[in-house]
């Protein structure tokens, strides 16, 4: 009686999650995998094959964009980590009471607006007729308008900004759990700033670093708006490619193949990251 009731409640609790995973994650991906192996022979006949995957390797455009997206995402993740670490340290260890809450809150506020609004904000700052350009001219650093938008640096600025919070939260959480005495002991034993950071702080924060990096990397790799709007005529992003294939070219087969490849790429990167840092997914996410 009791056992069956608890089993029923477990079923009820797990049903929404199971349905969500099954209907919105698993099924569409399987469908996409199937479509990616279809080859359109003429207008109403299709056959099976790996044509789309061959296209990916034979058209240099695809894999170059793919590589570029992966490398730029890695760089963005690294940069986000470098910027977020001192901030996280300050919030977790140096700020006290009210200041701590306020600082955290300040990091959160930008995320009340959508990605689109944040991106437009940066565009207003960076564009030729924008704020930064005007200030530079006013202060005498530039003679004419300076264009800072429509290049890779602008894209990375936007991406780092979008990822910052997701790096900060896990970092602050892990750093808060660290006993200050450990740091003190490090200095007592003759360590300088650098050795204490390397031998004590970073190893302790590693789970936070890895989980933050995974989230930021995934977000960056899958972001669409920021690279499209802030990147210039030479900037291409893999998600933009997938969108173009699906929506503009009606080529679902190619789009699906590229989508599958993106999924594989991101999974491999995460696996490699975990492997290289000696972390396990359970430890990092738990």
């Amino acid at each position, binding site marked *: *009686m009791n056992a*069956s009731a608890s089993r*029923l409640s477990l079923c009820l609790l797990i049903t929404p999650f199971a349905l969500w995973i099954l209907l919105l994650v698993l099924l569409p991906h399987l469908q996409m995998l199937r479509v990616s192996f279809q080859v359109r022979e003429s*207008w*109403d006949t299709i056959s099976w094959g790996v044509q789309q995957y061959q296209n990916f390797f034979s*058209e*240099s*455009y695809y894999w*170059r*964009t793919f590589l570029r997206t992966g490398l730029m995402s890695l760089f963005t993740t690294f940069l986000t980590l470098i910027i977020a670490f001192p901030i996280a340290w300050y919030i977790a260890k140096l700020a006290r009471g009210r200041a701590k809450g306020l600082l955290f809150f300040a990091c959160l506020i930008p995320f009340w607006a959508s990605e689109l609004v944040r991106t437009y904000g940066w565009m207003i700052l960076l*564009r*030729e*007729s924008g704020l930064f350009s005007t200030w530079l001219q006013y202060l005498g650093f530039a003679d004419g308008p300076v*264009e800072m938008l*429509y290049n890779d640096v602008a894209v990375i600025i936007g991406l780092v900004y979008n990822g910052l919070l997701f790096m900060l939260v896990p970092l602050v959480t892990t750093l808060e759990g660290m006993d200050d005495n450990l740091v003190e002991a490090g200095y007592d034993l003759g360590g300088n700033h650098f050795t204490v950071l390397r031998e004590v702080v970073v190893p302790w924060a590693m789970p936070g670093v890895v989980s933050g990096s995974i989230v930021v990397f995934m977000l960056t790799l899958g972001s669409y708006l920021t690279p*499209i*709007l802030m990147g*210039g*005529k*030479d900037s*291409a992003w893999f998600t933009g490619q997938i969108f*173009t294939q*699906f*929506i*503009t*070219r*009606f*080529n679902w087969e190619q789009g699906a193949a590229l989508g599958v490849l993106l999924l594989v790429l991101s999974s491999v990167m995460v696996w490699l990251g975990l492997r290289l840092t000696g972390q396990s997914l359970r430890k990092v996410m738990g």
Partner: protein
Amino acid sequence: MVSKQGTSRFRLMKVAAGVAAALLSVSATAEELRLITWGGYAPDDVVAQFEEETGIDVKVTLSNNEDMISKLRATGGAGFDLAQPSQDRIVGVQRQFNIYRPIDYSKVDAARVQPSMMKATKEATALDGKSYGVPAVWGTSGLIVNGEVEDTVKDYTDLCDPAVAGRVSYRLKRPTLIGFAFAMGEDPFAAYNDEQKYQSILAKVEKKLIDCKGNVKTYWTGGDQLLALLRSGEIKAAMAWDAGGWKLNAENPAISFVAPTSGALGWIDTFALPRRGENEDAAYKWINFVMQPEIAAKITNQSGNFTAAKGADEFVTAELRDAYRQSFNEDALNNIKWYPPVPPGLEAMEGQVLDRVQAAN
């Protein structure tokens, strides 16, 4: 134990069935027209008036050609009762994806539509003896030019002139390919059904666009983005739609829409019925409603584009009429190149060219 579990499962199913029935009955009460269309084609006041006169709720989804086709293709033509694709994008799409149903022209009030356009659209959307479109709104792509460079930029290829380096923009989409081809002295429309010939034209255009890449500030992707670029003076000339040019002209007379010497590219957006639409009557009611001259003029004033409705010009604002006349004299009007139906397969070729242009350095 077993029987207990059985009853509770049964009870659960009964609850689920009850919830489902309740949801269904709610959605079936109000009559509804689900319209997928372009920004500006269904102004709020027009929708309100229609709802008041007919009691039908109108749900508007804003879209563009590719998005419309993709959405309807994903559902096999369900989810919307009325769509407004361009007429050159109907036949090829219909043949491949079967997402529309033929128009019953006896239900359309033909007296309200300009006969020449009605005839042209019927012919352009004909497949297997049936037609799939009613003309709605028309317009052109050409050049939006700032007065400072109007002596330099007179045709599409002039966007590549060193004098305007870094000060121009266009889209990486098929109209750009077509426009450049015409400006280079080719006739891409005549080559629509000759794959080899079309490919050779595309190759020339590809080279031109890659050479021209250094001149471009950025490839624009949305109307608002383009208008912002032109408004702030960051770019001086662009290939774009006439309506956008007239909108800017109203704000700043120095900026105007110019019909290129090789001809503006003309398009007609239609009304088409999605194959699995659920309220055909409401769709015809909407078509006949917006084709009344006063209503059609409201759409023109909102979107900047003229409609196929007869006698609507009288009700259009004077500024818009003047801007239109300034852009198109008699010759320019006769020189408009109207898009013929796109044969299937063409867009795949164009897609590769556009990808290569994007990738080139």
